[in-house]
Each structure stands twice: as structure tokens, then as C-alpha cells.
């Protein structure tokens, strides 16, 4: 920790509106409580008796179950913050977390938005703008380009679109300019599919983000998804190391780890430096992540996107650094300079996170909303903000390594059909990757969730799979693994 040299207009936060739900709401409330900051949670009608609602100091209802009428309603969220007398809004991830309109509305109401400023959100949230910024900051980007809109509609038969795709080379990926989360994405393998893919992606993007703009980028079949965690205070930017999130299904991450395995120190340093360069270029303030697509065979990487918020997988970084990223977000939001220099950030061991979701892998990942009747998790021996000491002490005491569980479900919890299917994250930390895998395997064995169908068994099987255990799988791994499981029957599962 460094001493503070500059005296800013820092203002201690006393009361924070947590404008989210699920496990991230629990996560934010936990750190606020530890720091003595009061929390007021926004809850939709479907979440009135959720675990975060029970844990928050107070709860304010912001609307019916449908997210567009509640968690995505900027006016309702700002209105709730004003009514609650909150100093700040923590938006979590998803929903309004990267919404520049919310950031501006907060500024207008004299409320601190815990995240980057509206200008940065616009630069990062618009994928086309982010590509341009990455290029300006000297980062390599995938070959690609935008598609002209004619009268608000995509002119997909436009010969220029076909020419652009030819120039990029097939397969190409049609991506939405306005958002992420796997929506508005289409892989196109031959020219005949292009027109249809562009219209479908554009329609999906319009429905999901209110922005029909799409662009084309080269589709890399076998890359690794590696990202770098950043913290910035508007003046200085540091990184908290890298993560590998290559185990994905339809662009949804299922297993993440830190550090990214087998990168080689040269490539790792170049990735981290590139992410910091982009953060500096943006004058980044807050916590954020720069995502890259990595071609390990060639030792090359390309910029993918910036996520201007806390991410689902942040606990693996906390596990190897002993830091509490939410606490750093709050400190930065209070107007303080970064509390750490780059050389103060140290890394210990390896951490892996499995997402436990209410989906049935045996029925094409069919969602399984319902009511939890029983929720058994491995007893946690590691928490954000307690550093590495407790985990190490527990490992020494033979409790079985360091395990953390971030969840919003307990017996009798409702798992509403209105929201995403994430139930819990099981995070294991070990002295090295093999150690983390051993801890993770034992931790998953101790998970038992009744009342809804989950992917716990599939996660156990992946963690036992030799290819995953070897480390460094590419983004096509999970699809291949699942296909092999169907063909090979029980032998592999």
C-alpha cells in the first residue's frame, strides 16, 4: 500500500444503492458491510425475498419482474437512489452496468456512479468505437469493418458488405456494435449465408440493445480467450494480472482461471502491457477488463473488447492477489487515487472458478427455473478482502485447500424465469494449477442443489477431463467435449 500524495476531493461513501440482483448483489453487499457502508438494494417483485434482499440493510421495490420494467429502468433506478438518500449506485454487471445514460443521470442527480465516466462507457460499450480506440492505443485488432446502414435498415445484399467479407476472409463473425453477452453474434462460413446472418444479428441486436448496428470481424475458430483486469483512477492504470476464460458455450463463459495457463512470460507481459496501454489511452477510472483473442501457436493476440465494469469471474483474480476488487471500486468512486502501485500487486498460486447454472446439459442446456429446496456447498475458507492469509492457514490446518462460494441461493430461494441462470460460483485456490484442480474437484463433489436442474455434474466431468486438466484449451473445446460425450456415451461423462 502506498501513502496518498495527492489530496483529491474525496468523499467517503456512507450509503450505496445496489442496483442489481443475484450473486453480484450479495457480493457487493458483503464488501459494503465489511467496510461499514450501508446498503439499499433495488428489488423487482420477483426478487422481493431474495437472499440479497435479506442481507441488505434496506430494500426498495423498483418494479415488476420483467427486467425492462425494473432493473433496466434508468429512471426507476435513479429515483430509488434519490429516495434512499444514497451517495452512490453500484450497478454490478449486466443490466445497466455499462449504460452511459445511467452514468449521466447519476451525475445530474449528484449521485456517484460506481464505474467509469459516461464518456468511457460510450467509448468501450460501442464495440466499433472500442476497436478504433484500441487501434489508436497501438493494440492489434482482428481484420474487420462496419456495415453501412441504409435508412435504419441493413442493406445486406449490398455488394460492399460481400466485398468486405471477402477482404476479411471466411469464416467471418457478424457482431453487434451495441452490446455483448453473446447476443447479435453470427458465424458466417460462406457468402450465401451472409445476408441472412446480417439481418438476424441486426434484429437480435436491435431487440437486445436498441441498436441495430452490426459489423464484421474475422472469426477465429481455435483461439484462447484471455483477459486482463485493470484498475484506474483517471490518472494511473495498473493491472491485476490475466485470466483465461476459454471454456465457453455459445459465447457464455463456464470456467475461468487465473493466471492464464502456459502463456510464457513474454506473451503474458505483452498482453498485460497492451491492456494497460488501452486503459491509459482511455484515461480509465474504475475496474475494467480488456479481452483478447489469443493464437498461442503463433504467439499473437488481438483486441476483442473492453468490459467497463466488474466481471462475473473477478474472484479468481481476488484469489491470487488477495485483493477485494469491489473495495477498490468503492475507493476509486470516493475520489481517491489508486491505493496500489503496480509493484504492490503480487500473485500467489492458481485459482479456477466453475459457474453453477440452472440449465440441464443433458437436455440441450434447457433452462430450469424453480424453487431451491436444498443448497449444500463446500464450506468456504476464502473470502474477498481477507488477503491470502486465511486460505493459507486453512490449507496448513488440513481443511482441504481454499474454497470460496459466491451465491444468491439457499433453501427456499426462488430461481425466477425472468433472469439469467447463474446460481453460484465455486472458486478453488491452490499452490499451482494442479493443486487448484484438486481443490476444485473436491469442492464440486460437495455441491448438492435440489429443486432445479444444474450443470454441477457436467462441471465435475470437465474438471476431470484430461484435455482440460492439461491446460490451455481453446474456445472450441467445450463444443468438442460435449459432442464427444454424446458420441462416447457414459465412458467420458
Amino acid at each position, binding site marked *: 500500500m502506498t501513502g496518498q500524495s495527492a489530496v483529491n476531493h474525496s468523499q467517503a461513501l456512507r450509503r450505496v444503492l445496489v442496483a442489481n440482483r443475484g450473486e453480484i448483489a450479495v457480493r457487493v453487499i458483503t464488501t459494503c*458491510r*465489511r467496510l461499514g457502508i450501508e446498503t*439499499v438494494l433495488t*428489488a423487482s417483485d420477483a426478487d*422481493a*425475498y431474495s*437472499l440479497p434482499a*435479506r*442481507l441488505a*440493510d*434496506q*430494500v*426498495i*421495490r423498483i418494479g415488476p*419482474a*420483467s427486467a425492462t420494467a425494473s432493473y433496466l429502468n434508468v429512471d426507476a433506478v435513479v429515483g430509488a437512489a434519490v*429516495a*434512499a438518500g444514497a451517495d452512490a449506485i453500484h450497478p454490478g454487471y449486466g443490466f445497466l452496468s455499462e449504460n452511459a445514460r445511467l452514468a449521466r443521470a447519476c451525475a445530474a442527480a449528484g449521485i456517484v456512479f460506481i464505474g467509469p465516466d459516461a464518456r468511457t462507457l460510450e467509448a468501450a460499450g460501442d464495440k466499433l468505437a472500442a476497436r478504433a480506440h484500441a487501434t489508436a492505443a497501438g493494440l492489434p485488432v482482428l481484420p474487420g469493418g462496419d456495415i453501412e446502414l441504409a435508412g435504419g435498415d441493413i442493406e445486406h445484399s449490398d455488394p460492399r458488405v460481400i466485398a468486405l467479407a471477402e477482404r476479411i476472409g471466411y469464416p467471418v463473425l457478424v457482431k453487434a456494435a451495441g452490446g455483448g453477452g453473446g447476443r447479435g453474434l453470427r458465424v458466417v462460413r460462406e457468402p450465401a449465408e451472409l445476408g441472412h446472418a446480417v439481418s438476424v444479428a441486426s*434484429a437480435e441486436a*436491435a*431487440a437486445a440493445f436498441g441498436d441495430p448496428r452490426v459489423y464484421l470481424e474475422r472469426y477465429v475458430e481455435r483461439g484462447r480467450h484471455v483477459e486482463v483486469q485493470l484498475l484506474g483512477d483517471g490518472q494511473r492504470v495498473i493491472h491485476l494480472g490475466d485470466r483465461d476464460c476459454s471454456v465457453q458455450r455459445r459465447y457464455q463463459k463456464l470456467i475461468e482461471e487465473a493466471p492464464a495457463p502456459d502463456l510464457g512470460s513474454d506473451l503474458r507481459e505483452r498482453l498485460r502491457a497492451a491492456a494497460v496501454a488501452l486503459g491509459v489511452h482511455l484515461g480509465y477510472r474504475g475496474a475494467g477488463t480488456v479481452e483478447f483473442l489469443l493464437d498461442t501457436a503463433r504467439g499473437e493476440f488481438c483486441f476483442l473488447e473492453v468490459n467497463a465494469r466488474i466481471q462475473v469471474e473477478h474472484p479468481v483474480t481476488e484469489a491470487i492477489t488477495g485483493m477485494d476488487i469491489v473495495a477498490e471500486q468503492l475507493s476509486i468512486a470516493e475520489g481517491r487515487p489508486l491505493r496500489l502501485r503496480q509493484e504492490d500487486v503480487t500473485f500467489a498460486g492458481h485459482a479456477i472458478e466453475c459457474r453453477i447454472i*440452472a*440449465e440441464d446439459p443433458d437436455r440441450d442446456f*434447457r*433452462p430450469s*427455473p*424453480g*424453487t431451491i429446496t*436444498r443448497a*449444500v*456447498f*463446500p*464450506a*468456504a*475458507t476464502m*473470502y474477498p478482502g481477507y488477503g491470502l492469509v*486465511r486460505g493459507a*492457514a*486453512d490449507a496448513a*490446518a*488440513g*481443511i*482441504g485447500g481454499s*474454497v470460496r*462460494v459466491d451465491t444468491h441461493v*439457499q*433453501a*427456499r430461494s*426462488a*430461481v*425466477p*424465469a*425472468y*433472469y*439469467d*441462470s447463474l446460481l453460484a460460483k465455486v472458486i478453488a485456490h491452490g499452490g499451482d494449477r494442479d493443486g487448484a484442480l484438486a481443490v476444485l474437484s*473436491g*469442492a464440486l*463433489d*460437495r455441491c448438492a442443489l435440489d429443486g432445479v436442474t444444474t450443470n454441477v455434474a457436467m462441471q465435475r466431468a470437465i474438471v476431470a477431463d484430461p484435455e482440460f486438466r492439461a491446460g490451455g484449451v481453446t474456445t472450441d473445446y467445450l463444443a468438442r467435449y460435449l459432442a464427444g460425450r454424446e458420441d462416447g456415451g457414459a465412458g467420458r461423462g
Partner: protein
Amino acid sequence: MELTNEDVADILALLDSLPYDELDLRTDRFRLTLRRTPTDGWTQERQDLVDPVPLGSGTPVTPDHDISVMSEPGQSGEPGQSGEAGLVAVVAPLPGTFYRSPRPGAAPFVEVGDAVTADTVVAIVETMKLMNSVPAGTPGRVARIDAENGQFTPLGSTLILIEPDP
């Protein structure tokens, strides 16, 4: 003050040094069960019971409805049955939000009177951010649309009624 993560970790560290295999703590505010497993790790079952405190009231609220009710299967009957003679119900395959058209502003998949095959997509039910296409299931004509666009439909509830081909 409720049980913190640190409290649980302290209890666990203490318990691990003792010869006991299970701890069951129950108060008005929480339940905590810690169990030693054969593989030497511990499991944890925790239930926070404090009712949410509405802003400004200072007192917990008492649940005014069954929180699980939204995800209960509907009572509307199985596919192939319906309250009306000769009509076949297309039911929600999952609990979720019913949409009549592929995206906002687009034309509905079907209108009353339209001919459908078993594979004709007649609606979308959005569950956990996934769009699930709903096929008619029966060749015939659309006789009635029972659910309202944008409405939450429980599992198995009737969305549309089909008059099957003779």
C-alpha cells in the same frame, strides 16, 4: 447483527480441530449446518432468515405471497387436452414470457384462422434470457390465442388453441 463470512470461517476452523462431524446452529435469524465429509472437507448449508426491510419502514416485511408460486407448474392441462371440445392446446414448454412475434414491432407468427403444420412456430417463450420457439405441434388452424403478448406464462399453461385438421 447477522452471521458474517468471517464468523463462519472461525467456527469452521474451531470445529475442524474438534472430534465432531456436524454442527447445526439454529436461531431466529439464520440456520447453519456444517458437516464433515468422508473426504475430509466440510459442507455448509446456510439459510438467512431475516425478512427484507423495506426502505423507511425500519421493520421487516412478512411475505404476502408464496415466493415459489411463480415457478409452479400451471394447472392448464397437458398438450392434447383442453377445456373445449375438439381443440388442442399449445402449452408453454417452460415457464417464461410469451411473445407472439419474433421481435418487438414485427408481425405475429400466427393470427386466428391461420393454417399451421406441426412444425410451424407459433410463439416464443423467453426463459432465463433464452428464446425458446414454440411449434404448433398439431396440423390445423389457429382457433384462439389465449395468452397475452409479454405476459408471464407458467409451465404447461395454454398459449394457443389449435383446431386440428379432420
